[in-house]
């Protein structure tokens, strides 16, 4: 490919990686500062999507723009993209199932609890039966 495209790809990729760094920092702060399990899970998922999916896409772009890698560059780009898509698909499901399990087993105590619709729905269902 011509050098200009390469440069554009690399710079785009680097921007994405920087965004990823920002999200990772935010997620880490959230993990430390948030009060209970569910919001911390929210922070962790930010780390997974913003901090893993986005930079992986960036890595794919950078690899695609690096001529010196030879034939390996498509290999690296493809692997990074596939990994990113898998993370995008699986991370939210993982947090969803974790949250569900924590809620059902009542292992996590929600301290400043404003409203719990799931609990109310369950109570309603139980009442109807």
């Amino acid at each position, binding site marked *: 490919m011509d050098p200009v495209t390469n440069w554009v790809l690399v710079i785009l990729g680097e921007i994405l990686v920087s965004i990823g760094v920002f999200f990772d920092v935010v997620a880490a702060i959230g993990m430390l500062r948030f009060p209970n399990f569910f919001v911390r899970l929210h922070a962790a998922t930010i780390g997974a999507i913003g901090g893993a999916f986005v930079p992986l896409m960036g890595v794919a772009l950078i690899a695609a723009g690096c001529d010196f890698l030879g034939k390996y560059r498509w290999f690296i780009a493809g692997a990074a993209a596939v990994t990113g898509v898998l993370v995008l*698909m699986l991370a939210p499901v993982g947090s969803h199932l974790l949250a569900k399990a924590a809620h059902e087993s009542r292992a996590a105590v929600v301290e400043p609890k404003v409203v719990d619709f799931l609990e109310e729905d369950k109570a309603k269902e139980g009442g109807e039966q």
Partner: protein
Amino acid sequence: MISLTLYYVLMAICGLGSVVAVFLAIVERDMLKAVLFSAIQSTLYAFLYYLLMAPDIVLTYIPVSVGLYPAVILFLIKKTERFEDVEMKKGVLWATGLLSLVFVIATAAVIAGKGIGPVPPPDVRFLAGWYLATTFNPRVHLISAMAPEGVTSIVWDYRGLDTVFETAVLFLAIIASVALMRGVEHKGVYDELKHGMTLIGKTITKIVVPLIIGVGISIALHGHLTPGGGFQGGSALAVAPLLVLVVFSKYFFDKVKFTKTKALAIRSSGLLGVGLTAFAVLIAAIFLHKPAYILQNQPRVGAPLGFPWKGIDGVLLGGSLLSFNACEAMAVCAGFVILFLLLSIPERYVRSVVVGGEEHEH
């Protein structure tokens, strides 16, 4: 040289970190935490294997020690008890832990200083040199395994007998477990809404399972070319049914009529495939009135028959390795399914069959 030093520093960090993780895993009273520490140790070991240039072991180790072991032990903890009834003084623990770390570093210094020969040596042993020279070398076809993957060639060709019996150990362990749970036949009716996890989980599992199966099959069938092989592929494959079991619940297997007996039959067919591959050249040779060996792959001294090693367009087939890997993957996957099906039967039902008066010697 800087990068080389960094490489060794990483190794040393993995080693010391694993000591800490093992120490914590051993002294921990809460079994869940002990499993967690043991998983950390496994991860560090996996990284160490990667640094030690053992990709085959990494591929085996990650599904087994980081995935299946913790899963099985979590099943075990769920079915038994979580806490160990031992108290140890905190101070003693810290002292022992620190002392062992100091011991590690001090003895390492002694070895590095005095030298029990170079550690690591610059060269491999002569025997290893022979393996490396003959694993894929068409110029000496009579002593070559004709597969570029050194470890898989040793596993299935040079030392194939070991591997057949290693498979036998796994087989006998499964048979012993089945014998322990004999007579336990539990069936339920699968209810889409009641059993298993949420719809989101089930949908994504439906997407992921084919991917896992694809990866597993590719690891198994490329075993003679790249790191991987039958056992690695099989244990990666086994993750798919395990996922289905966890997400869709055990009753899903009842719905699709996939029982323990069927899994056992699949496993046996895989193993018989292994056995048949071991004897294939010998059987062919008997019909052709030629000499041959048990577990023969390529033509050998005085035994001219062998598996084809090259397909159309020069694709490497690896002789018997391909067949061994495919059969072994099938067998290992089915074996894990059997064990997880057995583990997932509700405990109350198992107790009604397994505990209590039945046949006795007296």
